[in-house]
């Protein structure tokens, strides 16, 4: 058995055992001669895999007004937009302040102040301004992603080896060429380190927005909050699992882009 198959075997084993235990423990423990059903673990709270599976297909069917896949697309759309806008603005701001000491010094306290606000405290304000739709969700995601990407890029842009910049100048580089050929590639490594957590945080912003937004906002977050209203654990589990899978897929996607753009880094170099 190669190392890879061994790892995959144990991954699968953990999944099978967890799902098996979950299913087994949430079935009635004693079935005869009792007036009420007794469980090891009450499925009212955590449902059970078979019920989740059934609900998954039901929620995707035409029996519900807004099928699950549409909710997923709505969440995905807001997350991608918030992420993209957050990364673009955070990267640009990080580069500008990273290469401009005075501006960084002037704005420093304000950035720290805004960043130290818990994002969730801004949710009511954002809702007040942008309403319950997709814009509010995107803004919430952006607010979180921006600062993570900004701080990382800022560090990266400041940390560029001055001798590397000098060597570019000796070769005749203009300010813009230094930025394009030295500062940006050098800062990118730092920026990428922030992207995987940024996706999760974008998702947090969006889901919170959907909690508040209700039906008009839609999305997986709405499914969660609606399931709370009907005390439906199975639907909630469906929503959570869909979110988890979405998170994994997005993280893998970013990893691919990173491996491509940072292929010069030793950890991405295939060694002969």
């Amino acid at each position: 058995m190669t190392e890879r198959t061994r790892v995959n075997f144990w991954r699968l084993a953990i999944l099978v055992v967890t799902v098996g235990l979950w299913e087994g423990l949430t079935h009635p423990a004693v079935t005869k001669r009792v007036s009420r059903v007794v469980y090891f673990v009450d499925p009212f709270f955590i449902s059970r895999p078979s019920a989740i599976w059934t609900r998954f297909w039901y929620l995707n069917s035409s029996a519900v007004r807004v099928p699950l896949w549409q909710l997923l697309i709505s969440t995905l759309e807001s997350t991608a937009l918030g992420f993209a806008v957050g990364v673009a603005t955070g990267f640009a701001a990080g580069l500008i302040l990273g290469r401009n000491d005075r501006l960084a010094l002037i704005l420093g306290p304000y950035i720290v102040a805004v960043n130290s606000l818990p994002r969730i405290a801004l949710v009511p304000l954002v809702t007040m301004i942008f309403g319950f739709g997709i814009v509010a969700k995107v803004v919430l995601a952006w607010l979180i992603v921006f600062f993570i990407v900004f701080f990382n890029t800022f560090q990266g842009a400041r940390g560029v080896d001055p001798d590397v910049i000098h060597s570019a100048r000796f070769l005749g580089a203009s300010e813009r060429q230094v930025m394009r050929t030295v500062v940006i590639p050098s800062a990118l490594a730092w920026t990428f380190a922030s992207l995987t957590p940024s996706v999760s945080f974008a998702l947090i912003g969006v889901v919170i927005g959907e909690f508040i937004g209700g039906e008009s906002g839609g999305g997986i977050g709405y499914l969660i909050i609606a399931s709370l209203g009907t005390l439906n654990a199975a639907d909630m589990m469906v929503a959570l699992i869909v979110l988890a899978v979405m998170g994994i897929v997005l993280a893998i996607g970013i990893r691919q882009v990173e491996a491509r753009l940072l292929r010069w880094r030793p950890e991405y170099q295939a060694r002969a």
Partner: protein
Amino acid sequence: MSRVRVEVRELTKTFLTGGREVAAVTAVSFDVRDKEFVALVGPSGCGKSTVLNMIAGLVPPTAGEIRLDGRPAAGVLPQVGYVFQKDTVFPWRTVHRNIGLGLEYRRLPRAERENRVREAVRLVGLEGFEEAFPATLSGGMRQRVALMRTLIVDPEILLMDEPFGALDTHTKLRLQAKLLELWFAKRQTVVFVTHDLAEAITLSDRVIVMTSRPGRVKLIHEVKLPRPRDVIRIRETDEYAREFSTLWHVLGEEFAKAEAVG
């Protein structure tokens, strides 16, 4: 006598460390003539790299004057090339794209760039590594990339700060031979900083010996060895042995002083 390209006059540099002014170099003066290869040697901490960095325009002098081609030096100049001891090859660019940097900055047409880079790669024997990233190369190969990256834009004045200082003896000798060969073909005006006396004698026309901190010029010595030189064979000659022994006694005193202080 050919014209003077680099004039260093009464150059002084003091640094502020912990509220105290510390003199790194005091009243250093020397000239470098056109097509001349000058080595600046001295014990570590004697300020030889500081002198080079002042000539390069990286460090402003506290007092004194530097003239390049008769004009006061101000900042980084286009006719000056600089090779750092530290690895400053861009890790995010392949060998090919590193060597072509200066041509890219000058917006040369792609076809011409390709030709010149190919020639440069051939000159330092890096064929087959054009598409490799620096992380996969040895220190010697990276320094060859750094050297060609600087030489490809044809600098007339070449400043080198212990470029082979971090390499093992074998690699160092091979790169010295390569440098001599390339220099002999183009005859740039070179200021080469090193603490390795053998390297200084092997490569240069004149050796400027600096004292231990604060650095002053102790001796300017003409190396009377014929060119072209073979970096290995030259070390086996009596002339070389005499040059070495003369300079070694002068430099040895300074090394001893530097040790006593530091």
